[in-house]
């Protein structure tokens, strides 16, 4: 199966690879997936004034599409408000990266990672976690 150019671009030059200080109250960390399933994503956000995401970093164990999905997610997160970040849908990622049906789960994982990071940040700061009712495509 051939990858789309955008997947190859993100895979070859992944954006925002790295680690933020997870003990900081400004940082939310989402760790999703499982090694047994062949993909694990760790996505971190740093939230500044007015609930705006000032930085985002990721590390991913997985296939090219999983790495590209998380790289793209960090790119989209930077500068977004938490509320807008919550609205990122896995199908947006599928569309942007032209993921084939067998790789949709990579985008689902990225969306889960975003939500997990936001909730980690919320809980750290005395807010309730937001439960997503969404049924994935």
């Amino acid at each position, binding site marked *: 199966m051939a*990858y789309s150019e955008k997947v190859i671009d993100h*895979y070859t030059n*992944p954006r925002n*690879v790295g*680690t933020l200080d997870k003990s900081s109250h400004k940082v939310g960390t989402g*760790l*999703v*997936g*499982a*090694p*047994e*399933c*062949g*993909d*694990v*994503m*760790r996505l971190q956000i740093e939230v500044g004034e007015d609930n705006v995401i000032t930085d985002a970093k990721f*590390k*991913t*164990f*997985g*296939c*090219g599409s*999983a*790495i590209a999905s998380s790289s793209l997610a960090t790119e989209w997160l930077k500068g977004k408000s938490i509320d807008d970040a919550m609205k990122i849908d896995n199908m947006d990622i599928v569309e942007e990266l032209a993921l084939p049906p*067998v790789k949709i*789960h990579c985008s*689902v*994982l990225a969306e*889960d990672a975003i939500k997990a990071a936001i909730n980690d940040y919320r809980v750290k700061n005395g807010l309730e976690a937001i439960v997503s009712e969404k049924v994935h495509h």
Partner: protein
Amino acid sequence: MILNKNFTYLCTVNILKRMNLPIYLDNNATTPMDPRVLDAMLPYFTSKFGNAASRNHAFGWVAEEAVDYAREQVAKLIGASEKEIIFTSGATESDNLAIKGVFEMYKEKGNHIITSVTEHKAILDACKHVEKLGGRVTYLPVKEDGLIDLQQLEEAMTPETILVSIMYGNNEIGVIQPVKEIAAIAHKHGALFMTDAVQAVGKIPVNVIEDGIDLLALSGHKIYGPKGVGALYVRRKGPRVKVTAQMDGGGHERGMRSGTLNVPGIVGLGKACELCMQEMESEAKRLSALRDKLQAELTVLEESYVNGNVEHRLPHVANISFKYVEGEGLMMAMKDLAVSSGSACTSASLEPSYVLKSLGLSDDLAHSSIRFGLGRFTTEEEVNYAIEVTKKSVNHLRELSPLWEMFKEGVDLSKIEWAEH
């Protein structure tokens, strides 16, 4: 200094000139055809196009003669006589003919077949078919090195057992089963011994007499011959083995496999066998040296593991897991290397390799596996390049891997509650 730099540059250019990228290291999947095989085949497409079954004119005789010669070439490679070779469309057909054909022929005698869990799908699925027809099949597990336990085989034998089918060399990990001992156990209990020898024939010495093999499947395209042609060896003496045809028609191949013979393919298979016969010994030495180098260099990487028994192994195969790196992601990074992986992401089923799992490998290690399959046209330069690219890619992806970071920080990954998805 400048001279030195230029020199290095020129060397690199030279290497790149010599090597054609991408580099093919997936010779267990298929092999390129040897040009000498192609030369032997070509006349049989055009001027020598006759039907080998045409008994009354020269066109038929020429074709028949070519087929007879190929039959000898194939037989010789495995120590058989030419009358024991049945040409087929490939090893999948040979496996099906053997399993289903023996079951149909001997079902009055018994309905039990023994095989193993690491067999090729052609054997496993033919066995599933036999189960639907009322057969009983035992799928022996393998030990963590990929070898079957002879004691378990002995215990699985029953008076109803008509066939034991165990592969010679495994396609994913290259492990060579103790076929001689397996055959002896089968025979002791009055059962036949069949082996899928697709990966072993032409790579290591295989002899049906010495090994006690009653049926053997082989394929053209794994031994630098053409695709779409294979053979089934069916023993004629001590005992005389019969299989019920699975393809009915004009009664070709002693009634066991009807259908006009694929003369160019058969000529190619014969030539491929002849070349293996001549070159196998030196080639096995050359390839095992290259393979050992590759393996030694790559297992220098931390947390890398060789899968399967390394002593009883085909000379050209190394299956290595690079922990904390996912196989498909790794193959994407090594885009100039054609290899394969046991990762789920490479299969439609999203399940990692059943062969690796049957060794007791955890799913995450199965996901991290890469199979390197060297071949006749693999050069040392290519192996050196593969070593460099693999090392670089594993290190790069580990920088990207949260699991690697956690491992390095001393986090026990087995204690983390992962969300299955």
